[in-house]
């Protein structure tokens, strides 16, 4: 049984896994690229080894080096986190071949679910409904896809066969734009996953993206931890998740039914460890299997908040060969949780990624607030990895309490040095449709306009004018070296010296 774990990842998820290991008394091994020497996962781990240059394929994708480091350091297991090597069946197999425990599913399950075509065929055979599309028909050329497209009908999605997380995905609304979009999707898929194959899928309109968290042990126990509502997406990237789903709400029967189907889908591939079954659900509560993510999910903390299950600790427990701590009957949802993904990107500049040195952070804290982050003041965000720098998770007794808590946490959260999408989340939290829980996967792109110029009557434009004027005035005063007498000392330092006098 292993007592040291190598974390083959970086950023917030590496920190999250290190924390779980520490709390289980396991030693941790970090790996890092040149730009991550001072990253939090390196600072927090018991051991840390250099991997290579910043580009992922020279560092965090170097499975061979990572296994070599695991063996050298005496780590008995590797946790892949999400992204990078997490869904590479060959890497999972290589770990096992090297005598290391892979904290995740069996390579066969990764392979079966990793190829979306096989995945859909497998679960379909197990009686789970799937979205219509070309999945299961192998690697098709552009010409073949162009021929099939009209039989599925527009709009449709071109999606990377090896993909996930919205990368290598394009929405196609007509046949004319299809060749160009196919090429773009292939190119992105090639860059992200080293595999440029794409398939087509019917785009369901007014659909919800709802997923179920699965836990499965080696003893054949498979349970689900309820759903997560992930319909709020921008460019097919999840941006905010909540649980329970406001769409399922208190329809326990529907929840139980979908949960059972999710468990069945996991069982269809002999699934072990943590995984997620993603469904599309239309407005008539018809649901279709979309894909299975055979790894820990970015948004796992909201499930932890409402079920009180530590998913990462369960993953490790399973990998150690123990049976689950919970049966399906033990699991229930308490209260409501929301996660906002805080990305280093500028919402006022078309969400372009933002890089640079973080100069200051004021973290929101207090009751019901959890922050999972991999950055700190002084750390530099490089352009090499994805822009998720922090996850802000709140938990409340009701959805209303969770929303109000998220609002106050977002208002408290200050990051300077890089731009973040915090203002976007603030606007989202104030949107009436979000508050009412009325949104689908198209909501953000179709109905939610994020625009700084839309300043309404109730706004603080006058205050903004005053603030800008005061700052400008201060700058002019300083630059012209005007020395004012009696200017108020802005620090409270002087009072430390005055303490004596004041105290008398």
């Amino acid at each position: 049984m292993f007592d040291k774990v190598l974390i083959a990842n970086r950023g917030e998820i590496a920190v999250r896994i290190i924390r779980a290991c520490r709390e289980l008394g396991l030693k941790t091994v970090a790996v890092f690229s040149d730009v991550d020497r001072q990253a939090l996962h390196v600072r927090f781990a018991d051991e840390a080894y250099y991997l290579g240059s910043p580009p992922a394929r020279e560092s965090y994708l170097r499975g061979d080096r990572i296994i070599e480091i695991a063996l050298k350091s005496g780590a008995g297991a590797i946790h892949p986190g999400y992204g990078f090597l997490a869904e590479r069946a060959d890497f999972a197999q290589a770990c096992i071949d090297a005598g290391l425990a892979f904290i995740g599913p069996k390579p066969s399950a990764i392979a079966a679910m990793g190829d979306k075509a096989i995945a859909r065929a497998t679960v379909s055979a197990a009686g789970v409904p799937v979205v219509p599309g070309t999945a299961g028909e192998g690697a098709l050329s552009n010409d073949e896809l162009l021929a099939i497209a009209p039989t599925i009908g527009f709009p449709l999605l071109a999606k990377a066969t090896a993909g996930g997380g919205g990368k290598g995905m394009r929405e196609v609304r007509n046949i004319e734009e299809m060749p160009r979009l196919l090429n773009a999707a292939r190119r992105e898929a090639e860059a992200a996953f080293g595999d440029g194959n794409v398939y087509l899928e019917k785009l369901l309109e007014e659909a919800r993206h709802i997923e179920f968290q699965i836990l499965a042990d080696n003893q054949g126990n498979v349970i689900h931890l309820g759903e997560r509502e992930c319909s709020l997406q921008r460019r097919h990237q999840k941006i905010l998740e909540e649980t329970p789903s406001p769409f399922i709400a208190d329809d326990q029967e529907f929840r139980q039914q979908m949960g059972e189907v999710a468990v069945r889908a996991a069982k269809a591939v002999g699934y072990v460890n943590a995984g997620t079954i993603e469904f599309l659900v239309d407005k008539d509560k018809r649901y279709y299997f979309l894909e299975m993510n055979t790894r820990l999910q970015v948004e796992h903390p909201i499930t932890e908040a409402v079920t009180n299950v530590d998913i990462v600790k369960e993953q490790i427990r399973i990998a150690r060969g123990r049976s689950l701590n919970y049966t399906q009957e033990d699991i229930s949802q308490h209260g409501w949780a929301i996660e906002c993904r805080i990305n280093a990107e500028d919402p006022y500049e078309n969400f372009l990624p933002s890089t640079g040195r973080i100069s200051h952070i004021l973290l929101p804290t207090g009751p019901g607030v959890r922050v999972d982050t991999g950055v700190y003041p002084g750390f530099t965000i490089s352009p090499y990895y994805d822009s998720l720098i922090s996850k802000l998770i709140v938990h409340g007794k009701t959805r209303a309490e969770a929303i109000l808590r998220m609002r106050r946490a977002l208002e408290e959260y200050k990051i300077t040095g890089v731009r973040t999408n915090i203002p976007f989340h603030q606007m989202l939290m104030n949107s009436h449709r979000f508050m009412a829980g009325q949104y689908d996967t198209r909501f953000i792109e179709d109905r939610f306009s994020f625009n700084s110029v839309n300043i309404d009557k109730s706004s603080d434009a006058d205050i903004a004018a005053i603030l800008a004027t005061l700052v400008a005035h201060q700058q002019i005063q300083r630059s012209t070296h005007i020395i004012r007498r009696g200017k108020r000392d802005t620090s409270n330092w002087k009072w430390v010296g005055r303490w004596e006098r004041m105290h008398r």
Partner: protein
Amino acid sequence: MKYISTVIESEYIIEILDEKHLSINGEVHTIDFEEVDGQPVFSLILDGKSYEAFVYFEEGEWKVMLHGTLYPVLVEDEREKRLRQAYGGGVTQTSEYHLKAPMPGMVVSIPVEEGQQINKGDALLILESMKMQNELRSPRSGKVTRIRVEPGDHVEKKQTLLSVE
């Protein structure tokens, strides 16, 4: 000191009277204004109301991020305003717009050609960075003049990519 500060369409006459007072459109208010720990974060207590905002200068105007809203503010004194009005306020309209790389990255494609007529909001260039393909759009209508890069080029932050006139 008297300033004319403009937020979108609204104009405010703001006079800084002393360390503790200012007037806005003739109305006097008590202020307590401080910079928070050397950050571009400022705390203002105006007649007892407490506000905190990021305030920074960018592309010729002040940006004020307050309660999740970004306000663009043009702060001018009377002389500056007169000058700007004399020049018709359209200085930027007639000059060339230079599309600059907002961050380091690789040019994936350039969906426009030199001489092409484009509309505000049209995609000018696709830049790959942070594992994402980012569309850079035109902030105005016009004609594409010089294209200085080509697909496959790696560009640095602020590098000029192409121009629109």
